[in-house]
Structures are given as structure tokens and as C-alpha cells.
């Protein structure tokens, strides 16, 4: 792979995925779709780590393991986020992020 596909192509993919995730986070109103955008962001970061590891430091493992840990963290975070969303649904009967605005001036 590394002979034919330059590193920058992979990085372009991950960058675009990252910013698409950000766009999704800023635009969507449903809390669960916001969570999905966050998963997109985390994924793009994973691709980044792995690509750098493979292309620039093939004999080291740091990127690989970091990506694994990020996956574990993403799973934990998704679980807690779903729990919170369930709670919000119980209190507001909807999961629109506009309802959760009590922490203001």
C-alpha cells in the first residue's frame, strides 16, 4: 500500500471526515445524531494515527495502540452519552438539544 498510495491521500480522507463530523455536530439538533458526528470525528483521528504509524514509523506500535485505546474510549463515551440522553428524554420527552439550555446567565 505504501508504495502506490501516498500518505497525503489518506490524510486528506481523514481530514475531510473530521470536518464533516464537525459540520454535523454544529448543525444537527437531535442529540443522537450529534453523537454519531462525534463518532465520525473519533474515527478520522484513528485513521490519522494508523496512517502515520504505518507510513512513517513502521516498526513502532504507538499509533496502533493509541487507535485501539481511542476505540475503547469511544465505546465508553458512547455508553455514558446514551445513558444521559435517555435521562434527558425522560425529563423533556424529546431529545432536541435546544431543550437543554438551563445552564445560562
Amino acid at each position, binding site marked *: 500500500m505504501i508504495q502506490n498510495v501516498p500518505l497525503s491521500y489518506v490524510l486528506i480522507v481523514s481530514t475531510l471526515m473530521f470536518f464533516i463530523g464537525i459540520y454535523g455536530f*454544529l448543525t444537527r439538533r437531535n442529540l443522537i445524531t450529534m453523537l454519531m458526528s462525534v463518532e465520525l470525528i473519533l474515527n478520522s483521528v484513528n485513521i490519522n494515527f494508523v496512517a502515520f504509524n504505518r507510513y512513517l514509523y513502521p516498526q513502532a506500535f504507538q499509533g496502533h495502540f493509541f487507535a485501539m485505546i481511542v476505540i475503547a474510549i469511544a465505546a465508553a463515551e458512547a455508553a455514558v452519552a446514551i445513558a444521559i440522553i435517555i435521562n434527558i428524554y425522560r425529563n423533556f420527552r424529546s431529545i432536541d*438539544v*435546544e431543550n*437543554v*439550555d*438551563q*445552564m*445560562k*446567565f
Partner: protein
Amino acid sequence: MTDYTYTLLIPLIPLVFFLFIGLTGHKMKPIVSGLIGTMGLGIGAILSYITAFNYFILNHAAETGYHSIKAFDITWLHLTDKLTINLGILIDPISVMMLVVITTVSLMVHIYSLGYMKGDPGFYRFFSFLSLFSFSMLGLVLATNIFQMYIFWELVGVSSFLLIGYYYEKPSAVAASKKAFIVTRFADLGFLIGILMLSFNTGTFDFQTLVDPAGPALATKGAAAFMGMSVLTWSMIFIFMGGAGKSAMFPLHIWLPDAMEGPTPVSALIHAATMVVAGVYLVARLFPVYSLGAPDALHVVAWVGGISSLFAAVIACTQTDIKRVLAYSTMSQIGYMMLSLGVSGYGGEEGLGFMASNFHLFTHAMFKALLFLGAGAVIHAVHSNDMKDMGGLRKYLPITHITFLIACITIAGIPPFSAFFSKDEILVAAFHSNKILFAIEYFVAGLTAFYMFRLYYNIFWGKNTHYHHTPHEAPKVMTIPLMILAFGAIFAGFLPFNEWVTSDGMGLEKHTVWAIAIPSVLIGVAGILLATLFYKSETAIPDRLAGTFKNLYKWAYHKFYIDEVYLFVTKKIIFQYISAPIAWFDRHIVDGTMNGIAGVTQYVSYHIRGLQSGKLHQYAYVFVSGVVILVIIFVAFM
């Protein structure tokens, strides 16, 4: 050469006791604080006598002249090579004399106050302030340089403020203390300007260097002229302004009658014997500079003294408050001392005025303190200050009566009591110098005898007033100081001041000029007789006299309306046209700026708080945009 370092204790013991009594006095019984203060002054008095004995008698310096000795000197502030402020002790004929005067009178006042202030709730406060005053005055007279004297000058002013306003619940006392402090502070402005001019031109603060005839001060006397007078003359006049304020000379005298609001021992100590003579002491201390370098300034001194003594004597003839009469008498006598300094020359026979002035300072301290303390005993017995409430008190207050009579005879200048000698020398000096001033002083001598005996007769003779409760003689603790001071008043005239305290340290030859002495005695006797005629028994003559000279009487009774002039100038002119705009500026512009800043902050924060909307999308958007902008900045500009 005797070591005079022990003189350091004389001012420092009252200072320590001031702090001690001031901080812990409320915990001890009042009499204990009084005794501690008295003890401090007692030690000081004994040390002063020892110093005087050492300096004047033991040193046998009469042959070579009395020179000033620096007993103690430390550099306090070394700012530049030319500007250093030292603190130290200067032993010199006039400072030793003042040591004796201050400690003796202060000791008498302390003992007297043990009885006079008994039962007063602020007893320990009184004694702590008395100790503070004693420390300040002693520091003033022992100063080695003019700046140290200025420091203690201000300290004395503060002590006076604290003591005049001692009865701080009385609004009149508070007003009087404010007036005293402000007037003397205003005079001290002139003093400070004079100090700065003098030290700038001569390069030194130190007295020994300043008065040295071969030194830098007198070398500059011909230099740079401004409006016809040299810089040295101008600086000496400004310095005299400070002295005139503290000594209640015309027109800065307005605070002295009001200062009688303080307790009577305070009047005796501060406003009769010690603080008010600080101005005279200042001129005497700088006398060589005055007489050799700025003789025009000396003319100003003489005329101010003369006018003040006449002014005060006329007013004293009409006042009914006994303490006010004594206050104006003090002003008049200090006028004598200033005049005597003003007409004096330097060295030898010419320096008669200098010697006479200091001699009169000494005797005046004795008899004026005696008069005030006696008046205090009378007030203590009758509970009123006004002459109209008194009369026939000689039956009830025998000791007070006799001592008061002795003092009155002294002040009238009857030999062989002390003031005759001192006043006579003053008249001789005046005669040889300026006949007009002599004539003024001669007339004032007569007036002095007249109004003092008017006071005496109105209190102790005159009508038989009916008293609500029989006045009783003062307790022994109050009469013993009276007796001691009376002793001093009688016999102090025999001290050989002509050997000890002269303008250049060498002794003067003393001879009585009968041509002046006899007329002065005669006019004194004439004054006494006139007063006896008017006031010994109740007659209608004074009222008829007041009726014929209605305008003069009215003007004199209202103290020549000087207070009203001051009030007019301050209230109508200064307050309205200077203070009010400045206050407006402070309130609206300075405060307005502060309030404006606060208001702007409030406005901005109110409108910014919309940023905390609680909306998650807004937070995320701001976050992302912020990061992007930061990166752009970093990438583009670095």
C-alpha cells in the same frame, strides 16, 4: 570637657512614658498613670538641673565664653552629600536655660494636674498627652539642625491640638483645637519655605554651621536681591513667619484666646510658658544669622513684637473671661520678648536685647504659669471662668490669693521681684535702639499693670458675690506648685543671666540704668493705683469710662474684629471661589471617571452575558471558530 550624653534621657523618658501610659493607661488606676507621668518629668527636671549646673557653673567657661556643644548626633537621612538630616542634641546657653524652664514648669503642671483633673474620665489620656508634649518641646529646644527643629515644631503643634481638644465632646473645644492647628500649620508653611530657601543657599541645615560668623550662611548675605532684599533676608522673614504663628504674634494670634478651651494646666504649660515661646526661641537660635546677615528681618521682628504687645494689652483691658485676659497678657509679654530680640545687636554690649529677651522668657515662664495655675484654682473653686461670677474670694482661697498677688506684682515690674529686672533690661535695649518702640513698650508696661490688677481685684476683692456653695481652697497637690512657682517668680531675678546667656557667649557687664528703671517702676505703680481706684471696691467708674470711649471700648471688646476678617476671607472668598470649584472637580470629574468606568463595565457585561446562552451549538461553534482563527493567526504571522 564634660560628657553631656545623659541629656539624651531628658526628652526620651517622657516619650517612653507617653507610649506606655497611652497604650496601657486604661488598665491601671488613674492615679498610677498620673504618678508615672510626673515621675518621668521629675527625672527630667533633675537631669536638667544637673546639666545646667555642669554647663554654667562647673565648666568655668565664663572666661572663654559659653560655646555650643553637640552632645549627641546621628545621621538620620543621608539623601545626597549636601542634603543630610541629622538628629542630635545641642547644648548651648539658651537650650540649657529652656531645658530648666520646660522641665520645671512641666513638672509643676503635672503635680497640679494630679489634683485638677481628678475624677476626669480621660485622666490617663491627659497625662500621656502631657508627656508627649514635654517630649516634643524638649526635642525642639535640643535640636541641632533646623530640620530637626521643624519636625519637633510640628510635633508640638500636634500635642497642642490634642490637648486643646481634650474635652472633645465640647464643640467649642474641637473648633478651637482645629483653629490652633490650622493657623500654626499655615504659619509653618512660611517656616518651611524659609528653611528650604536658607538651606538651599547655604548648603546646610546645621545650626552650628549656620550661626558661625565665618561660615557659609553669613557669606551669602550680599547675594541675589529680590525686591530690594537679599535672599537671606527673605528666608529669615519666612522663618520668622513660622515663629510668629507659633508665638501668637499679630496677625496670626487668633488661635491663642480660643486655645483657652483646653484644661487650665494645659494653658499654663503650653500657652504660657513653653510652646508659645518657641517662636522667640527660634529667633534666638538663629540670632547671629538675623543680626549679622539680615538686619532688615530683625526690624520686622521688632515691629511685629511691638505692635502685638500693644494690641494685646488694649484688648486685655476689656475682657471678662479670666483665662482670656491671661492669654492676651501672654501675647503681650511675648511681644516684649520679640521686640527685645529685634532691637538687639550682636556681641558685647550690643547684645543686651538678646540677653534681656531670654531673661524675660525665663521669668515670664515662672509667673505666667503661676497666674494660670492660680486661675485654675479659682475656676476649680467657683466653676466659672467669668469675672462677673467672682468677687471677694480672698477670704476663701488664701494661698491662691497670696501667690496670685505675688505674680501680679511681678508682672507689673515692681522690684525686687524678677520681672522688674528682665523688663527693665528690655526697656533699656529698646531705648538705645528705637525711641518709638521704647515709647510703645513703656505705655504697654503701664497697661500691663493696669489690666493685671483689674483682674486681681475683680477676682479677690470687689463685690461680695453670693456663691451657691462656699468655694474651698484647692487641695495641697494644687497649692504646692503654686508656692514653688511663686518662689521662682520672686527670686529668679537674681540669676546672673548677663554672664550666662548672651548673644555671643561672652558675659555682659550688668549695670542698672536708673534713668529708665525708675520711670518704669513709676508707670507700673501708676497702673496699679488706677486699677485699685476702679476695681478694688465696686464702683461705677469703669462703666462710665466705657461709656465715654464707647467706640474704642467696643472695638477692644470685640478684639478689633480680626476674627471676623479671617472668617470673611475664608468663608466668602476661599471657600466659595477656590474650595467649591475644586470640590466640584473632585466630585464630578475624578469620582465621575471612576463611576464612569464602573458604569461602562456594567453596561458591557450586561450586553455580553448573552454569550452564555446555554445552547450547546453556540458553544461548539465559537470553539471551532476560535481554534480556526487562532491557527490562521499562527500560520499566517509566524
